[in-house]
């Protein structure tokens, strides 16, 4: 036994340390959501393959276009002077200063065309036809009204690059991913010199780039913004750390304060706080053994768990004050109450696993473990300390709060005010209805994020594609993706015919077609040796050598590709820049990305119609709609199930349907009052705070159970029951409310709303359980409530 105890403690310590070293933060909000949903799958693929995790987007706004253009170039140049930080800083399309860098893309687009088109192209460059083709180009140069056609023809007299413009890849105007229409808003794309392997790397790198940019801007006066994937990671994970630590400290502080006010003793207070810190470390360490990453919702566990675990400490300490007997007897006495409350509370939190929201499941598991660890730590570690402390110091005098709770006046006034409050809130529900349901994806986003603000600005100033849906197509190889792209185009064309979509763009034209590539390269082989002849044709028509540069580069590219294995992808810098946002190909997975503009009001029908194997039509709004279609239904089933289980357990435990009825009625009043309070405060239901109903079922019911047990123990003496548990319920509810309320300022809107709703619900629950449950209990026994000593 002597060896067993230290061994067990040592093992626990090792496990906790291992767990702590494993855990990290994950800012991906999709990790909070059910991964069987089509929207979640599609958006996850989108973020994984197209979000550019190491590319920081720097936005720059100036008073006029010239200033903005020169500032963007200057800032890019400044950042490029730091190769230890910056791999690339791009402020203009890579092909702007060297259009021939697009030669490999032009060559690639041509070999993806249908073989008859390529045969026609080859024929137009035959010795007989080439002079005529060049004369047609001269006519275009002399007569066309299109500046783009003129500019293209002068450098591409054989018309190789027409397809590039037909594909919409080359923007006609000034507006592009680098500049707004008026030129005053510019965008730089900055890539890290080193891999950003975790959120701390991202925070450090962003801070360094920001410092460089701001130092450069000291004498420029332009407005800078920072966004993109690494900025989101840095922003959100930074606030996650802050949310977890600040809410935990505030909860501990408030707990300490109310303990001091109630018992006026420092030593047990420090011991209690130490226990809570131990609970936190053990819980997070144990959680780290099976969780690798804390989500933005998961970080809320700390303060909730502290706020709930402290209840057991209060109970033990309160009981120890007038305990007569051994330590074991104290532990046994407290065990019964703690088992009830910790059991129902942890059951409610573990029940969140039944929800399909992994974020809530994680929160549930963490708090559930924390509550059980808290119960064990309080019974095994804190109880001996409390027992020894009170044995030495003796019982303190009852605090002013305790004395006040015991007066009939306090109970009468409290009951009347609670009835008035409850009736008032109930009438709000009757008059204004239940709180509205927020079906947007707003609850998934952080409340404040500079990266989000900058991205919103970028959308507003460049092309606002917020109404667009992203078409994500995945496959195991190029051929499968191409086949799915063709299927998607057919489906989208049908959707347009039905009036569900207004326009769509897919990268089908950019996607390799291996069979065509093989046949076309064969067809074009005869041209690869025709360079000198074609150059001579141009010379005779009056063109300079500069006019042949692109043609020559394309011919050379075809020559180079003739010995390469298929399928071919263009590999030049400009091509990679263009393709990075529409195509992703790795050894095991290929993805294509397009955009679709739904007809207003037809988003759901369109998303449903296009859905197919490996074809995803997604957006954050569509995700919100899908979640709101599925998750509330799930919660209703979950809540009904849990309510049934709780009712059965209570019936078995109390062996009195009447008492169970009183408890359930109390809960009903709590929920009606909560609905009224939320409506009054302008709060809405969302995906996350719906879980508050579940948690109130598990945690809020504890106060009612304690009072009901006390009423039964005291033979229905309301005054005695309220005196016994008044202070405990007060302390427990304040600490739990503090725990939940402290995550009310969390940056994640879903977590924040969950915290505020739970805090509000618990406050109402404590009031209604303490003041109204005894009234209902007396009424259930045909007695009119009285407030005597």
């Amino acid at each position: 036994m002597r060896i067993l105890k230290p061994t067990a403690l040592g093992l626990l310590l090792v496990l906790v340390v291992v767990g702590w070293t494993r855990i990290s933060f994950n800012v991906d909000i999709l990790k909070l959501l059910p991964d069987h949903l089509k929207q979640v799958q599609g958006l996850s693929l989108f973020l994984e393959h197209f979000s550019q995790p190491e590319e920081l987007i720097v936005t720059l706004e100036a008073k006029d276009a010239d200033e903005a253009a020169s500032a963007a170039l200057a800032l890019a140049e400044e950042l490029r002077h730091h190769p230890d930080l910056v791999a690339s800083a791009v402020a203009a399309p890579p092909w702007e200063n060297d259009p021939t860098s697009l030669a490999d893309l032009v060559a690639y687009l041509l070999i993806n065309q249908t073989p008859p088109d390529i045969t026609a192209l080859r024929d137009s460059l035959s010795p007989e036809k080439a002079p005529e083709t060049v004369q047609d180009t001269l006519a275009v140069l002399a007569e066309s009204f299109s500046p783009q056609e003129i500019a293209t023809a002068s450098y591409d007299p054989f018309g190789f690059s027409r397809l590039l413009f037909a594909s919409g890849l080359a923007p006609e105007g000034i507006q592009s991913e680098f500049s707004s229409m008026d030129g005053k808003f510019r965008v730089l794309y900055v890539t890290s010199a080193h891999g950003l392997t975790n959120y701390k790397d991202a925070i450090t790198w962003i801070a360094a780039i920001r410092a460089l940019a701001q130092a450069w801007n000291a004498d420029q006066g332009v407005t800078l913004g920072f966004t993109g994937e690494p900025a989101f990671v840095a922003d959100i994970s930074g606030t996650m750390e802050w949310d977890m630590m600040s809410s935990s400290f505030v909860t501990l502080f408030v707990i300490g304060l109310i303990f001091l006010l109630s018992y006026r003793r420092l030593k047990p207070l420090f011991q209690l706080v130490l226990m809570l810190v131990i609970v936190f470390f053990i819980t997070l360490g144990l959680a780290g053994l099976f969780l690798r990453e804390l989500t933005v919702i998961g970080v809320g566990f700390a303060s909730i768990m502290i706020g709930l675990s402290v209840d057991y400490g209060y109970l033990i300490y309160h009981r120890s004050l007038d305990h007569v007997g051994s330590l074991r007897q104290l532990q046994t006495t407290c065990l019964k109450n703690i088992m009830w409350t910790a059991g129902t509370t942890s059951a409610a939190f573990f029940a969140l696993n039944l929800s399909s929201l992994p974020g809530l499941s994680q929160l549930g598991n963490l708090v559930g473990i924390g509550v059980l660890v808290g119960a064990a730590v309080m019974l095994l570690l804190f109880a001996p300390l409390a027992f020894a402390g009170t044995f030495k110091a003796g019982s303190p005098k009852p605090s002013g709060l305790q004395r006040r709770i015991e007066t009939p006046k306090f109970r009468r006034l409290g009951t009347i005010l609670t009835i008035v409050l409850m009736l008032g809130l109930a009438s709000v529900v009757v008059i204004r209805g239940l709180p509205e349901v927020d079906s947007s994806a707003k609850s998934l986003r952080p409340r404040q994020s500079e990266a989000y603000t900058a991205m919103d600005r970028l959308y507003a100033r460049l092309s606002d594609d917020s109404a667009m849906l992203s078409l994500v197509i995945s496959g195991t190889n190029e051929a499968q993706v191409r086949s799915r792209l063709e299927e998607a185009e057919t489906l989208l064309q049908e959707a347009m015919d039905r009036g569900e979509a207004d326009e769509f763009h897919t990268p089908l034209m950019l996607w390799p077609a291996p069979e065509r590539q093989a046949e076309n390269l064969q067809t074009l082989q005869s041209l690869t040796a025709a360079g000198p002849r074609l150059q001579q044709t141009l010379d005779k028509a009056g063109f300079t050598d500069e006019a042949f540069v692109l043609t020559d580069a394309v011919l050379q590219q075809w020559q180079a590709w003739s010995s390469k294995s298929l399928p071919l992808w263009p590999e030049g810098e400009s091509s990679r820049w263009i393709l990075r946002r529409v195509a992703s190909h790795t050894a095991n997975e290929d993805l294509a990305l397009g955009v679709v503009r739904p007809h207003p009001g037809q988003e759901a029908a369109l998303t449903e119609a296009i859905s197919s194997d490996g074809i995803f039509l997604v957006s954050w709004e569509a995700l919100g709609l899908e979640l709101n279609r599925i998750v509330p239904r799930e919660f209703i089933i979950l809540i009904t199930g849990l309510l049934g289980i709780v009712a059965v357990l209570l019936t078995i435990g109390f062996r009195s349907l009447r008492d169970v009825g009183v408890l359930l009625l109390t809960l009903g009043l709590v929920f009606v009052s909560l609905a009224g309070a939320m409506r009054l405060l302008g709060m809405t239901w969302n995906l996350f705070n719906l879980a508050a109903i579940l948690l109130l079922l598990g945690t809020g019911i504890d106060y009612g159970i304690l009072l009901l047990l006390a009423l039964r123990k005291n033979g229905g003496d309301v005054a005695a029951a309220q005196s016994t548990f008044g202070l405990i319920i007060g302390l427990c509810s304040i600490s739990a409310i503090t725990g939940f309320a402290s995550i009310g300022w969390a940056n994640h809107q879903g977590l924040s709303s969950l915290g505020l709703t739970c805090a509000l619900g618990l406050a109402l629950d404590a009031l209604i359980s303490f003041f109204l449950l005894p009234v209902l209990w007396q009424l259930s026994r045909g007695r009119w409530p009285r407030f005597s000593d």
Partner: protein
Amino acid sequence: MQISLFSSVLWMLTIGLLTAAPIAKSDLTPVKKWIASQAGMKSLSADFVQTRTFRTLRDPLERQGHIWFQSPDAFRWELGSPPTQIVLRYEDEMALIEPKKKRAQRLDPATTAKQSGRPNLAMMEFPLATDFAEFEREFEILDIRIEGTHCTLNLLPRDPEARKMVRDIQLDFDSTSHHLLAFEITFRDGSSLRNAFSNTQINTPIDPNVFGYDLTGYTVRDADP
């Protein structure tokens, strides 16, 4: 094919400047007078020779053309002899016609104006500017030179999209006849486009049939959205 800023600037300048009032020797008073004179113009007809030069061509390319304008919103611009490209507008209808290829594209004047990036610079917008202040908002006047009766004005459009393409716009006037002699746009890549005008007639009657065109047998494409 889009009628974009390039052509919009070109047509606008043609229509606007063919009606130019005489340019004085000092300051910008001639320009102000010319802006003011536009209000009185009812119609315009002129021949022109268009010369385009390119960095990739050793010799310039020349085409002849003609322009007609009838207030408030009818015009016809044709290039080539016989014409190979015609831009026609009558009231709210506009089209780009290619007789040689027997094809035409309907254009939306409003969209065309927007696509130019500057609605008030689109060719169907007339008068060019209601006053000199508006003209200055549209153009930066770089230089004005007068040699004998020949007046040269150098401009730059203020529109960033146009400035990205255009290095310089040069206008040549005859201060005696009050007519525009030529205008030339030099682009950033060194290529240029020059229109030299002759036989300019202002406020002479124009046959209304000039602003119509029979598209029978043509392939007609609708305006791009």
